[in-house]
């Protein structure tokens, strides 16, 4: 096989967490979900107490909070122990960076 370099634009059509979570600036950090419609994206970002902010953002991904509401079953979204697990041999992409003793370390889970 021969090595090659790609030049095509990668433009995934789904939001990153920070794009969705901007709408959570009025609440605390926490779960977030995103709903993508034909021309607009509606995101919902929430916090541990079940309050969420519903946000509307256009394709330029510049969200603004539009309304708040209770999220049913918020507790179900709490991270489980399974989510913390790092499997040996799993060539996993770093999911989060964290600072450890002044050093940038690799993560062992989303929770760090």
């Amino acid at each position: 096989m021969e090595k090659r370099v790609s030049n095509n634009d990668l433009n995934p059509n789904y939001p990153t967490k920070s794009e969705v979570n901007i709408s959570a600036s009025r609440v605390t950090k926490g779960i977030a979900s995103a709903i993508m419609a034909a021309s607009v994206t509606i995101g919902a970002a929430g916090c541990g107490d079940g309050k969420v902010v519903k946000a509307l953002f256009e394709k330029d991904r510049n969200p603004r909070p539009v309304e708040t509401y209770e999220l049913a079953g918020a507790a179900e979204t709490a991270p489980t122990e399974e989510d913390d697990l790092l499997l040996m041999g799993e060539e996993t992409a770093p999911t989060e960076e964290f600072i450890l003793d002044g050093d940038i370390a690799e993560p062992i889970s989303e929770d760090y």
Partner: protein
Amino acid sequence: MRHLILGITSNCNLACSYCEQVHAAKYMSIDVMRDAIDYFASTLPHDTSKFQISFYGGEPLLAKNIIREAVLYSKAKFPNTKIIYETTTNGLLVDDSFIEFSRDNGLVIALSHDGLSQSETRGFEREVNTVLDKLVRNSPSVPIMMTVHPEFVDTLAKSIEFFIKHKIKKINITPASGNKASWDDNSFSILKEQMEKVTDLYIKNNQDGRRLKILPIENKIKAYINETQSVNSHCKLCSSKLLVNYDGKIYPCTHFIGLEEFFVGDIYAGLDYKRLMEIESSRIAPSECDSCSYNKRCSHRCACANHGYSKSLSEPSAFQCEYERLLINLADKAAEILINENNPTFVKDLYK
């Protein structure tokens, strides 16, 4: 460091066709195990509330007594800390008593299983399938660690269907690397075709409300959503992981275990930072990666993956380049479909 990996034995009761580990009847003693945990404890920040201990081999269940003792010792030593325990086994020594121990102590048992090629690559298909069902009955989230050899890559998608039929929800797929697995254009094109089918299964199962996790795909989606994988966020050897072999020697990662050129200290003298820095400084990403559009989402900074496929710490092989490109494209395809459909479980899981 928040992840301790104990290489409790280099012995194994299987001879997998692609395995390059040198097996010998060497076992970690209880004293070394305790000293390793003590050394690991000395490296933890004071506010550590959670960490992971993994048991690695060879076949770790050949040293079940060390696993049991390590769990009991660490629980007693850290009564107020959440400890996640994990081991990956070939399944042959899993019995009811060990399953009960794992259930009582929160030990996750991941099963190495090669799906439909199990009989050719690992053997003991019938016995391991019995264990597979037993483990699923014990824990519905038992992870499967599957290795795909180029010779049997055409059975990959059918293997995933097999696991789904057996109610498995979490599957890692690793293309075999090393001298016993040679990927070429032909085998890669079959892998591509098979991974496309696997992605369709991933999408379909999640659409049907079954939260199937195909880890190579899902990790790419997660990394994009979390914006955490960039050219600057490569693994840093020994920074969060401590791997202690049966003899107390420290290595940077499971891939390097027992390889003397990657020996970086021991639990008595501590980490050899000079040697570690020498290894780190030899890792220079290839300049051609800078101009590749996949650069920021590619895992070409993973030293052990590079070493496995190209024998270089910093140079990914042509196969890795193609495979990373494939995974990123398939991950985006799956995520776009599932998020556009507002798949509730998938979206909640990925954006929590």
